[in-house]
Structure formats: C-alpha cells, structure tokens
C-alpha cells in the first residue's frame, strides 16, 4: 500500500468527523466525530513518518526515525484526556439543561 491510500483513508475519516460534528444532534456523537478527526490526524502522522521521513544511518545500521509515531501516540493520549473532560462537561450540561442536544444549549447568544 502506498502513501496515497493512507492519505485517502485519513481524509475520509476527517471528513466524516467534521460531518458528524456539524450535523449530529447529540453531544456524544459530536464527541465521536471529534475522535474521528483526531484519529485521522494520527493516521496521517504515522503514514507520513513511515513513508516520508528519511531513514538515517547510526553506526552502520539504517534506523527509522519515529517522530510521527511519537506524535500519534501523544495525540491518542490527548484525545483520551479530551474525551474525559468532554464527558464530564456533558454530565454537567445534562444536570443543568436536562438534555445534551447541542442546539438546546443556547442561552448565551447575541
């Protein structure tokens, strides 16, 4: 599989995420959309780091640099943290508004 395949997949994922974020009428689905976005990015990073970043030779043997992978891992971590916070806030919202439909949470406007 070449880089293009990965990129296509990741961009599809990204678009799906954006679509979910913009259209879903449920906070949880929005969260899932966000996760999709983040994961598409992670996929990008890994793919790029596999195909693009030049391998450098340390003491004779050729070694790959893992920058992309590292970023991806951090991305996963942050995504998890974000999800946690998001869910907590959704709880608060539910407590205050009795609903998690994003379009019903619009007392602040203008």
């Amino acid at each position, binding site marked *: 599989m070449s880089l293009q395949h990965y990129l296509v997949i990741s961009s599809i994922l990204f678009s799906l995420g954006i679509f979910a974020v913009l259209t879903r009428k449920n906070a949880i689905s929005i969260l899932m959309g966000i996760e999709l976005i983040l994961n598409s990015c992670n996929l*990008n990073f890994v793919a790029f780091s596999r195909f693009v970043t030049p391998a450098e030779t340390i003491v004779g043997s050729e070694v790959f640099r893992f*920058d992309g992978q590292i970023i991806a891992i951090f991305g996963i971590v*942050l995504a998890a943290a974000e999800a946690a*916070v998001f869910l907590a*806030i959704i709880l608060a919202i539910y407590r*205050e508004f009795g609903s998690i439909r994003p379009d019903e949470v619009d007392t*602040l406007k203008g």
Partner: protein
Amino acid sequence: MEPLKNIESLAYFSPEILLVVFAAAVIIADLLVKNRESELVAYISLAGLGCSLVAILITNSLINSNEPIPLFFGMIRLDGFAVFFKILLLLATTATILFSLRSEELDVKLKGEYYALLLAVTFGMFLMASSTNLLMIFISLETVSLTSYILAGFLTHSPRSSEAAFKYITYGAVASGTMLFGLSMIFGMAGTGDLSQISLQIASVLESGGVSTLSVLIAITFILAGIGYKIASVPFHMWSPDVYEGAPIPITAFLSVASKAAGFALFLRFFHVGFGKPEILQSIDWGFILAIVSALTMTVGNLAALPQRNVKRLLAYSSIAHGGYLLMGAVLLTPEGLGAIFFYLIVYLFMNLGAFYVVVLIANEAGTEMIDGYRGLATRAPLVAGAMAIFLFSLTGIPPLAGFFGKWVLFYAVIGEGLYWLAFIGLLNSVVSLYYYARIVKAMYFETSEDTNGLSFSTGTFALLSVFAIPTIFIGLLNIFYTFSDKITLQ
C-alpha cells in the same frame, strides 16, 4: 548552538518545573487544610508564581538574547521572546489569582483544584511561548485548552458556566483537531517537526515543485484555525463572547489576556519562524490575507460590541477587537511590528485586567454585570468609577493614557510597512470603539441610580486598582517600555 540533552535542559526548564511542583503542593495542601475559608492555597500558588518568576529571571540572565538555547533536543527553546511572554503570563496569572481571592462566585470547596488548574494552565502557556516543534506546539495547546475548558465551567450549579464550558470544548476540540490535521500535512511535506527545519524544507519543496502551493496553503489554513481560535480572530472568534460571558469573571479576564497572549506567542513563532522565509512568502503571501483577517477581526469585534448591555460580554467583544489590532502587528514580519505587539500586550495587560477587576468589584457589590448596574457609580464610588474611566478610555486609545501609545506604536509599524488602508481601518475602528466604551462612562458619570448609598471597598481593593490604573496612565509616558524590539529577536 547544539540542542541540549534532557538532563542539562532541566536547569533552564526550572520555571515550568517550579509551577508543576507548586501545583502539586496546592493540591496536597488543599487536602491537608480543614478550614474551607482559609486562603492558604491561593497564597501557596502565589508563592509558586513568585518562585517561578525568580527562576525566569535567573534563566534569562543565563542567555543572551541573540543566541537562544534549544532544550530537550530542540523541542522547546529558551530565548528573550519566551522570557518576555513568560513574565507577561505570570503577571496575568497573579492578577487572576488576586481577582479570585476577591471574587465571590467561586465555589469554596473546589479552591485547591481551581488554583492547581490555574498553575497548570500557566505551565501550558509557558510551553506555548517556547515550543519550537510541532509536537510540543500541539501538546502545549491541548494542555492549555483542556485546563481552560475546566476553568470556564468551574461554576458548579451555574448553567451559563456549564454551557460556556460545553461550547468552549466542542469548539476547541474541533479547532485543535483541524489544526492537528494541518500539522500532520506539514509534517508530511517537511518530514520533520522542527520549525526551523520545516521552513527550510517547505521552501525547498515549494521551489522544486515537490508539493503544490495549494496543499501548503490548506495546511496553513487548518493550522490557522487552531491558532486563530486561541487568539479569537475572525472567523474563529465565535466561541469567545459566549465563553467569556459564562465563565467566572477572573477566568474571563485570564482568558482575554493570558490565553490571547500565549496564542500570539504561538502565532508569532509558528508563522515567523516556520513560514517567515521570503521564498515561502512570495509563493504564499499569508501576510496579506492575515491583514484582511485582522481588519475583519477588529471591525467585527467593535461592531458587535456596540449593542451589548452586559459589560462582560462587551469586554469580550472589545478583546476580540484588540486581538485584531495585535494581529496587524503580527502580520508585518518587521522588528517594529514585534516591538509594537510586545508593547501593546503590556499595555493591554494592565488596562484590560483593570477593567475586568472593576467588573468583579461591581459584580460583588451591585450584584450585576449589566451596564445599568454602573449608573451613578461616579457618586457611589468615585475612585472605582475614575479608575474604570481611565481603563476604558485607555482601551479606546485617548492620550495621554497608555492605550493611545500602544495604538501609536502599532499604527506606526503598520504605516511603516505602507499598509495605509489597514491603519485607516484600525483607526476608524478605534473611533467606533469610543462609542461603546463611552456608554459605560456615560452610565457611571452622566446618569443617576435609584440607590445612591455609597459602595465601600477595602484599601486592598484600592491598592490593587491603583496597581492597574497607575501603569495605565504612565507606561506610555515613560521611555523604557518602547525598546523591546531591539532586545528581543525571533529566529
């Protein structure tokens, strides 16, 4: 010079480390202290900020500005630029903590977490100000964002606060996600995460035609979404009025100053270091498009501020407008532009925080954030009213207040680059802004309230007020503040 290894870096990393340590200390102390009323944790965090400040000064003495020190294999970088922003952020945080001490809307049971989070967010902002690697940029941004989400929603049993947090996190998550995608594309094109490397690589691949301009363009725009959301620039500003209105006032003040400043630090580093090369600029003139963005930002901010009745929300819009002013300086890529931003940020720190402090006081005493609550303040609390007038007119940019000099250096830099149209729009905007600032002054001075009994404030309050008011009057008149651009360079 050579990037330092991890262990050697720690010495230069001491300010951040101190912050983390004290954050932990705050939590522990919070567990130990039984008396909910005691302000111990706040003072601990203040102490932490103090120690960190000392550390910053020490580290600053270790570097000489023209030769920055890359730390942790070049993940972050210690230079005058970073130091300046760190000090600025420290001051902002200190002010926020002092506000929080006065503010009465915060839940006493959650003091520990609150102050710990404040320290944490400061830590994140330090990283934003100094990170030179895509990874660090993303991490620092997320750190700041996550903590800010929590702080924004910190008022338990306040629907507005929760809503603010919800909108903030949704918006922030999407924005940072988009940014991350952009980052990944950049990473893909450059094959490295280091900003200075990136600028070289991107320039070369653009020249060799290895990648199309459009892809770079999309990447930059995606990243702009993330940074623009931090500095609340059009069209990524829409979260800020709602969040500012819903969040606790000290946090609003903090966001409007500190997080904006950190955002600008990130912006400057990313665009100036990463994409400031002439080769890149000639194929992608992001400076021009961002000039338009800045014009839009200040216009939208000022116009939307006109009809506001809620002072907090009004100040939110005004801070959007000021973001626009700052953005003018940011697109210039000239030392004058940088210096102007630095100077303006200092001024903005004092006048905006001062204004928010008055909002806190009035919210406590009169129990309202609406303009009507400010009626007859001139007679009820002359000093507070006077201070507020000073802050507001300084925000408008009326001589001899500092705000005018801030605008002066900005517009000077802009016109120096020949962008007369931008300067003209900016100046017209400051005329418009007079109108809504003056509405508050009008309420305070020209109108009378039904209850005329004077409000009483502690001397500490007045001391803190004067801490903001006096610089707001004098910064512009003193010579020393004008010379940052000479010392601080960005490479």
